[in-house]
């Protein structure tokens, strides 16, 4: 009772200033959620990974989210920083907090509950109502679940990069593994957490029916011809059947409001 009174009193005193008007967002999904909550106009800065919706790319870029600069952040005069769990270095965020600018760290969970939890945390930090967005996303997930129940199971491998012929594939506990589960796809690679380089023999043994990659350019790009010519990838059923899929990385692995749609696209592209 007393704490409620205190909260109310504080709310009355600080109420109008509590709404955070100058927000920096570090983490692609967090940017999407802020925009989906209709709070895009409150953003004053974003990190390099925030690229959707496209209007957000007009904001000042604070650099890569793991190599942020304290003074760079403070130069934008923020009153709130929404940061992905990956954001750092920790010293930078500690310095920003020392100036009494709150830094809200938001964990990523690669499940339906994780996405909803993220939406709630962002909405709470921005003091906005998440009901509508929550309902919409929950509905999307329900539709996805229905489609998943009807889809034929597929074994696939997610390749993060293949620079120099070295295949970096996803194991368990990653965003890629999460989206596979949501799309009803079986991860052909098991036995380790995170991303690891796979030996040629392990690739052949995994025998994926499909290969999923991010749309990329330069060194990391892997063309269909290169996959067929690769000593191990070329031997997989995926290469023989030509079931090779490239999707936008932010869309596919972001775990934001668009995730049900991304999982659905993945399922449709590989299904049947």
């Amino acid at each position, binding site marked *: 009772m007393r704490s409620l009174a205190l909260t109310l009193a504080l709310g009355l005193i600080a109420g109008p200033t509590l709404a955070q008007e100058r927000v920096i967002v570090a983490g692609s999904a967090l940017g999407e959620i802020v925009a989906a909550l209709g709070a895009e106009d409150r953003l004053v800065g974003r990190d390099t990974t925030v690229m959707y919706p496209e209007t957000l790319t007009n904001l000042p870029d604070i650099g890569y989210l*793991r190599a*942020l600069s304290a*003074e*760079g952040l*403070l130069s934008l005069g923020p009153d709130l920083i929404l940061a992905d769990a990956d954001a750092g270095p920790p010293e930078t965020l500690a310095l920003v907090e020392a100036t009494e600018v709150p830094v809200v760290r938001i964990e990523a969970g690669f499940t339906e509950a994780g996405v909803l939890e993220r939406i709630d945390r962002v909405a709470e930090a921005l003091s906005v109502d998440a009901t509508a967005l929550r309902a919409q996303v929950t509905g999307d997930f329900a539709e996805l679940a229905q489609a998943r129940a009807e889809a034929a199971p597929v074994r696939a491998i997610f390749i993060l990069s293949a620079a120099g012929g070295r295949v970096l594939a996803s194991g368990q506990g990653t965003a890629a593994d999460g989206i596979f589960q949501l799309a009803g796809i079986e991860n052909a690679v098991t036995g380790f957490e995170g991303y690891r380089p796979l030996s040629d023999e392990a690739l052949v043994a995994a025998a994926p029916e499909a290969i999923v990659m991010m749309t990329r350019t330069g060194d990391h790009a892997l063309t269909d011809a290169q996959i067929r010519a690769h000593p191990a990838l070329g031997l997989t059923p995926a290469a023989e059947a030509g079931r090779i899929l490239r999707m936008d990385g932010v869309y596919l692995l972001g775990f934001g409001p668009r995730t049900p749609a991304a999982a659905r696209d993945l399922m449709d592209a590989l299904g049947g």
Partner: protein
Amino acid sequence: MVALRFTANPGDRAPRARLALWALGLLLLLTGAVSLAVGAAGVSLPQVLADWLSGDGVGLRERVILTDIRLPRLLTGALVGASLAVSGALMQGLFRNPLADPGLIGVSAGAGLGAICAIVLGGVLPFGGPHLVPLAAFLGGWGVTMILYRISTRAGRTSVATMLLAGIALAALAGAGQGVLIARADDAQLRDLTFWNLGSLAGTSWAKLSVAGPVMLAGLIAAPFLARALNALSLGEAAAMHLGIRVQRVKSVAVLAVAASVGAAVAISGGVGFVGIVVPHLLRLAIGPDHRFLLPASALLGAVLLIGADMVARVIVAPAELPIGIVTALAGAPVFLWLLLRKRGLVDL
């Protein structure tokens, strides 16, 4: 060189060197002041000072930006720059070759291996804390320097070709060790390592400085005591011994000082290249090779250059930052090439 003949005491570059030391000292103060005054956040140093002096009080944001962001960075930059430049000068004196540089001959790679060991394996060790990474980097740098000296020195003569080639081999070995650890590292550690490799002062804090700072300082303080010995050593180890130098002890102290400075500098800033080779080179052109002046002048100019490079790194793509290693490589590599071209024919490997 012609000007030398017109000075009061021909061949005596000491007065000129002393003047240069004063000038560099002043330049360091100036650069330091500018570095404190410049930054993405546009906090004005004079304004803050005025507020502070008039007793109005300084805002929390201004205070944090000045005392917790810019000041430790300034000090770290100065110490790292001074350490790398002095280590370069020490190495060159010790190996009696102007091309020796901790970065070129694998000492930095060894320190890097130590640091990466600590980053990746740190979690599973029963001990640790903030001292672990600088300590591991120091051990890595020390190990490589010792091996290098053993391999390239026969009967008191250092073969520079052997030294450079051994340095390449050791750097490759250290790189392989790093590779093994990187294969073990998780995705997050991996991306940290990438940025650490490029060199950056972005993660600087008082806490980190309080660990690495004293180590770098120890190396810097030891250096001037080696000056006379290094001058004598430029005649060869035997001649130095005949001049009364305890050659073996000087070598051990120099190797320790280099390993400590480079280890701590690499631990706190990652891969910052070319300071160690370019700074002593430029100074030798200006004030001559006398280590009594070359070592302190290297410390000052190294500090000035790194503070300057950090300023560029902080401001040029604000509010983001450029890794400082990119700035020093962009500025240092062409200067190094120019020095090589200039010297071609005079220096033989």
